């Protein structure tokens, strides 16, 4: 999956900065300075991605105001209008239950964005706590936590998430939890690496020297400085998280009907490929594709701006 791809690239993301939001902004507003032959295409793509993301988020938030069929976006049916081809009244056509596909796509964006964010946040919190503790404490605890991390990384992620989701019974919360279980180990590894390098820093030792307790040192001095590369990785992973939750929706393990979900909508559209009602699966898939791409491009920009190697690649 994409997230593995992301982590391959971003293992070296270590440049300290302060907070992902600022990094993202810096990356997009101020492309790396001093580069005579900057990758102009890269900047344009990144800027385009940010605009696209802003539009997607706004459309998701304002979905009930954007579409005249908000009730259908929430699930109300209108059987007499079933499977209408795209027209001015229904730009994306209607589905088998007569619901406006555009309204479903807009409401589906809420599901996608919220679940993607939730997965990454749970993963970041769990992974960072475990990883930072492992790296800071060291010894057998470090060994134990990291071996558990290895085990979770040994499963192909989507497969484990599917199994867990089946065991927990299908619902959006369970899908998010199932994916988060496969998500945290990446952040644990990054956080551990950072914590090890911080452990011997003077200010951390000084804090210990004046009698600050270990948990307090981790909370106040280690965690804040561990976070930057973790956030970078998290932005890289958002697109993958949304893709994964859609994949669970596609196999029927996501949010139950009638809540709109892109994966489930694509899955419902499968049978219409043979009957020519192409719009039913095409538009939700297009929305998913564009969203993932926007997140990937934004993630790339963050990575380029934060890793020395990424910058070198961009500037060379």
């Amino acid at each position, binding site marked *: 999956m994409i997230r593995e791809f992301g982590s391959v*690239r971003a293992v070296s993301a270590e440049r300290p900065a302060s907070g992902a939001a600022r990094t993202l902004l810096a990356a997009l507003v101020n492309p790396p300075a001093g580069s005579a*032959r900057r990758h102009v*295409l890269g900047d344009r793509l990144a800027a385009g991605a940010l605009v696209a993301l802003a539009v997607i988020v706004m459309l998701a938030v304002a979905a009930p105001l954007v579409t005249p069929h908000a009730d259908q976006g929430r699930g109300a049916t209108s059987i007499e209008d079933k499977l209408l081809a795209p027209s001015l009244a229904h730009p994306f056509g209607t589905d088998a239950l007569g619901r406006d596909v555009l309204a479903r796509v807009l409401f589906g964006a809420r599901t996608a964005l919220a679940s993607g964010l939730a997965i990454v946040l749970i993963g970041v919190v769990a992974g960072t706590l475990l990883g930072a503790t492992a790296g800071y404490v060291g010894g057998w605890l470090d060994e134990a936590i990291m071996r558990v991390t290895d*085990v979770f990384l040994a499963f192909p992620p989507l497969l484990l998430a599917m199994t867990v989701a*089946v065991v927990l019974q299908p619902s959006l919360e369970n899908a998010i939890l199932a994916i988060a279980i496969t998500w945290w180990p990446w952040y644990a590894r990054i956080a551990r690496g950072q914590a090890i390098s911080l452990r011997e820093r003077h200010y951390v030792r000084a804090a210990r020297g004046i009698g600050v307790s270990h948990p307090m040192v981790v909370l106040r001095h280690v965690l804040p400085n561990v976070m930057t590369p973790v956030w970078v990785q998290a932005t890289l992973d958002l697109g993958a998280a949304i893709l994964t939750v859609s994949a669970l929706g596609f196999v029927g393990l996501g949010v139950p009907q009638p809540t709109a979900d892109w994966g489930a909508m694509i899955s419902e559209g499968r049978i219409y490929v*043979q009957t020519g009602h*192409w719009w039913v699966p095409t538009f939700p898939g297009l929305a998913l594709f564009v969203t993932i791409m926007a997140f*990937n*491009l934004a993630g790339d920009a963050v990575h380029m701006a934060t890793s020395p190697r990424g910058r070198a690649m961009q500037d060379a």
Partner: protein
Amino acid sequence: MSGIRYLLRRLVLALLVMLGALTVTFAISHVIPGDPARLYLGARASEEAIVAVRADLGLDDPLPVQFVRFVSNAVQGEFGYSYRTKRPIIEDLAERLPATMELVVLATILALAVGVPAGVLAAARFASGFDRVMRVVSILGVSMPAFWLALLLQLFFFLWLDLLPLGGRLSQTTSFLHPVTTLTGFHLVDAALTGNWVAWRDAVAHAILPVVVLATFPVSLTLRMTRASMLDVLAETHITAARAAGLHEREILFRLALKNAIVPTLTVLGLVFAFSITGAVLIESIFKWPGLGSYMLDAILNDDIPVLFAVTLVVTVIYIVINLLVDLLQAGLDPRIRLGESSVG
């Protein structure tokens, strides 16, 4: 660390990870709400029958006993019976694994055959028009949801152009008039070995769409990895020296630089496998491909829990072995890894 010690260390680690994967699977299987015996027998089973099946499946034994039995069964390939097909799962797996592996192997070959040369050329012509096009193409590729691409390709190539079949491994007429003798389980290989060219052409036509869909992400991934490590290598002094010595550019790129750049790129092989196998779960049912993926999807739709665990375990073990082989291959190619200068795994 010597080569032998590195090898042993990696083997032991891989075994420990496998044991850990079994533990995690066992733990998950024990938080299942509901009684496995009831799931097995169906909702209308009598109380006595359920008690009998509980005893039969050993569900009343203490947890450690159950765990040891679970591990020893898994090691022997005893995954029990599918709730749905009522057949031993291992038999279903043996039938379906080759079909999936055929797709995965073809997708991997395609990924390397397209991704590596494209990555080398993009790096060689850094920031050129070709490099930019490749960058856009690879971003499109890694962002493409496989299950959506599968439907789009079906629309184009089956419904609108009528060029390629909708799904299955062979068309019905072919499997009736020119059945493929099973030797390896790979239709393409078996048909070629037996000289059954009618079936071979039909099998190729059926494999094109699923393989292209499965290869889309791996091609982009391989391209980006190759490009990145080629850029690193091309900046090194021995390349400059080779250029100064007047070596042909193709010689420099594909023989000198790629030899070094390929080592980090090999890491993608494990990822490509993981992606293809999970991708197979999503797209095999779209293409009616009778492999592990559609088996797993059927299991998901039918709450066939033992099948889910069996597929997850088997695929995870294959994944661990592939990652082990990739690590060993990298160590073989790059002495720095086996001598412990850079920390791997």
